[in-house]
């Protein structure tokens, strides 16, 4: 399965090295609302993990995303 970092880097058009826990929607020009939806869709497509609207709205940083994803992957 493609890693979360690889999916995110591909959707945002950035290098994986740029992605750390501090990487957020507030400090990234690439992570705009359009790319946020594309990212959620791409994660679902590549991993089968589905997010709720509430989760999509609450994910603001790479750490948020990683934590939410791992929690859902464990519960699957």
């Amino acid at each position, binding site marked *: 399965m493609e890693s979360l970092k690889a999916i995110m880097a591909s959707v945002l058009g950035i290098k994986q090295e740029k992605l750390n826990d501090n990487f957020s929607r507030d400090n990234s020009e690439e992570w705009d609302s359009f790319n946020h*939806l*594309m990212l*959620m*869709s791409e*994660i*679902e*497509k590549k991993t089968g993990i*589905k997010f*709720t609207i509430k989760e*999509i709205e609450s994910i603001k940083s790479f750490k948020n995303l990683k934590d939410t994803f791992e929690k859902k992957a464990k519960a699957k």
Partner: protein
Amino acid sequence: MKGKEFSEINVGDGASFTVKIDEKLHNAFSNVSGDKSPIHCNEKFSSKTKFEKRIGYAFLLTSFVSRLYGEYLPGGTSVCIKQDAKFVKPYFIGDELKVIGKVIGKMESTKFVEIKTEIYRNKNELIFRGNGIVQVILKNE
């Protein structure tokens, strides 16, 4: 036709319609877009090009994709958020075009529906292709 809810849409669903390109439609797009390029509007000029006549507007084709999404698939329940467009070959006034859409993916999280779009001229010549993504925006899902 009633627009479909996200749960009613399935991968493999399809829709199509045909449209005749006449002078009226060609000129209407010319006026709406403001594109009066001689390759579209001047027969004498166009006779000297490699196509030897006026060619149809590429972006008129994308307006038929709008009709496909708005009227047929899903049919008025979504907004288009992304569209690829490859204008493979030209078309001409007098052509009959067939616009075809097929659902190739669904993403539950975002209510995205991915649709493969193609347009053929005179039954069998592919002139346009490009995948689009629409988002079903009904509140109750």
